[in-house]
């Protein structure tokens, strides 16, 4: 028998054993695939908090399984297959690099639901994708950065030149410039998601250039640790998780990824039979992006301004990418009053006007 048919029959058996689908389920086995360790204090930690929230919400009606440190590629495919064979009803794959593996395994297990974080491929009806509008949080950070910088030099530790990261940089810069037209942005590309040593080097390089506000799109606390060595001269933000341990030091606010509402919702839909394939992209309004407490280092008026921006985004009255905005080369992108279509953001491969330097090609 061919492997494909074997797998299909195994999946069929699982489906029969777990009862009919459309009517909902008595019990759901929800499985999570993590790219890092659950103790990374950032990206994976937040996903695991979401998994724990699912357990909390449904108690005995769900069983949670997870696997840490799964490399992207062939290993992910094996882990996903093992999970599907092992009876998982819904599998959350929590890194962009799992995209092809998720779709490949989903083809073999049509009755298992797959949820891929931050990707765009939904090649099969049982694959959904979900992401968060982190650029909304970057707008709030940019506002604080523009107001707080004394040197008018702000920095950004970027991971990889993908749309997700580029839209964060653009949003951060646009909102810093809005409150401080003299602001200059330096971007350092670390080419990693999680590497405390490289992140610390990047922070050092920025500080040496005179940067006094650092934002990062990497997952460790190393940039904050580096900023802490400057005796308060340099401030920064928590990334992915609150990084509250630096509240007394350089951390003035944070962007918190909050996956719990989405995970609880999707598993709940599977339980009550209302589950459908979707492409979810929630932000501050949906509670997926939280702004961590703005500390007293930030003057009250700046804090109020940042919080007002957050509320406007939450209420839907303000979009962080509202024209007029030109691209870096001066060509127009958004006309006066026009807001960025999601498609433009998801494929973003250019800096906005005013940012110096090139995106690595």
């Amino acid at each position, binding site marked *: 028998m*061919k*492997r494909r048919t074997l797998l299909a029959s195994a999946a069929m058996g699982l489906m029969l054993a777990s009862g009919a689908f459309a009517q909902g389920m008595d019990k759901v086995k929800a499985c999570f695939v993590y790219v890092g360790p659950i103790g990374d204090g950032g990206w994976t930690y937040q996903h695991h908090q979401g998994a724990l929230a699912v357990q909390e919400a449904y108690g005995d009606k769900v069983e949670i399984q997870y696997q*840490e440190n799964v490399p992207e590629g062939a290993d992910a495919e094996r882990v996903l297959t*093992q999970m599907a064979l*092992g009876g998982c009803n819904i599998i959350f794959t929590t890194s962009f690099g799992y995209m*092809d593996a998720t779709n490949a395994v989903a083809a073999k297990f049509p009755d298992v639901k797959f949820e891929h974080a931050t990707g765009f491929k939904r090649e099969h009806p049982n694959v959904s994708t979900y992401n968060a509008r982190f650029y909304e949080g970057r707008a709030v950070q940019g506002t604080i950065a523009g107001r707080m910088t004394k040197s008018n030099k702000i920095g950004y530790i970027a991971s990889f030149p993908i*749309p997700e990261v580029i839209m964060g940089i653009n949003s951060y810069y646009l909102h810093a410039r809005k409150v401080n037209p003299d602001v200059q942005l330096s971007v350092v590309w670390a080419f990693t998601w999680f590497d405390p040593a490289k992140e610390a080097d990047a922070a050092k390089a920025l500080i040496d250039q005179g940067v006094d506000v650092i934002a990062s799109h990497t997952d460790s606390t190393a940039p904050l640790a580096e900023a802490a060595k400057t005796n308060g001269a340099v401030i920064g933000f928590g990334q992915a998780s609150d990084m509250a341990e630096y509240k007394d030091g350089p951390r003035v606010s944070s962007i918190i990824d909050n996956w719990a509402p989405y995970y609880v919702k999707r598993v709940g839909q599977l339980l009550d039979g209302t589950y459908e394939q979707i492409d979810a992209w929630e932000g501050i309004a949906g509670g997926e992006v939280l702004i961590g407490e703005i500390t007293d280092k930030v003057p009250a008026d700046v804090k109020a301004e940042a919080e007002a921006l957050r509320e406007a985004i939450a209420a839907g009255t303000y979009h962080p990418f509202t024209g007029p905005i030109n691209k870096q080369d001066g060509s127009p992108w958004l006309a006066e009053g026009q807001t960025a279509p999601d498609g433009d953001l998801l494929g973003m491969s250019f800096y906005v006007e005013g940012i110096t330097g090139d995106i690595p090609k």
Partner: protein
Amino acid sequence: MLRLEKRPTPSRFWLYATPPVAVILTMVAGGILFAAMGKNPFEVIRTIFWDPVFGEFAFYLRGQLLVKAGPLILIAIGLALGFRAGIWNIGAEGQYIMGAIFGASVGLAVFPTENRLIFPVMVVAGAFGGWLWAMIPAILKTRFNTNEILVSLMLVYVAETILAKASTGFLKNPEGMGFPGSRNFSSYPAAANPELIAGTGLHWGGVAAFVTAILAYVLLTRHQTGFQIRLAGQAPRAARFHGVSPARLVVMCMGLSGAMAGMAGLFEVTGPAGQISIDFNTGYGFTAIIVAFLGRLNPLGIVLAGFLMALTYVGGEMASTNLGLPDAAIQVFQGMLLFFLLAVDVLTNYRFRLAVGAH
């Protein structure tokens, strides 16, 4: 008091007894670790060593063992040739990456041409990429007497940076909406390296691993070059009197191990991995060093060691997912294997003696 005494000649018994003893000690110490974590140690050990081969899902996992063992064996055999001669190529991970990039570049350059020659040419390009990357430490060593351990290791990080550049730049999928990663070879038949027999996990990389194992065995036991390699490792001075050029040997051993690592990378990128991506390399080049030593630097031993190592990965994942063991515990378990191997290995060259009278 016990003390260590050097054996006049290495013990043949311990040379071959070391790996099984190390495995048993790892199971015992690992079992204690798992028990201390509140898991049933017998269940964990069974999940790691038994279930992938004979358990409920063995029909799928057996093939996965081969997928995982193939590149380990191929790289480890190349490394073993050098290690035998006392040439320490620690940078197979980098050569693996460069092989994948070179081979994939050739395939992607001619996309979407369909021609039966494309895949073989890609294999050659992959081997060339690995060879080229290994030539840097080899030539620096023979010309300037640099340390090949350091240079080859450092070049791994250079290769990783080039890999990131490739996935976000020159090999990026033009239809990938700006996201990093090359085209997927699974949708390009002429350049793909699919499973040869469905359900077995065997692809061309596995075939290459077995063929290489046999060739390397013949080379080491029956061929003049194999004799020179062994002699250079055991008695460098004698080797020089015997007309062995150290420089030639360095270039040859580094080149062979680099080419094999490069081929492994090419087979992986066109097969199981499917594409060039930022995190394409997952440590095969480093794990292969353990495999080489676990297999006693003997090609046939390496084949067994490759499968054992694959078992700890695949079984370890099962234990982690099904029994809720943290990944770190599995890594400790794998680390113990090397630790006990090196510890027991002492008995090959030394023996314990009861010392009369304290020193």
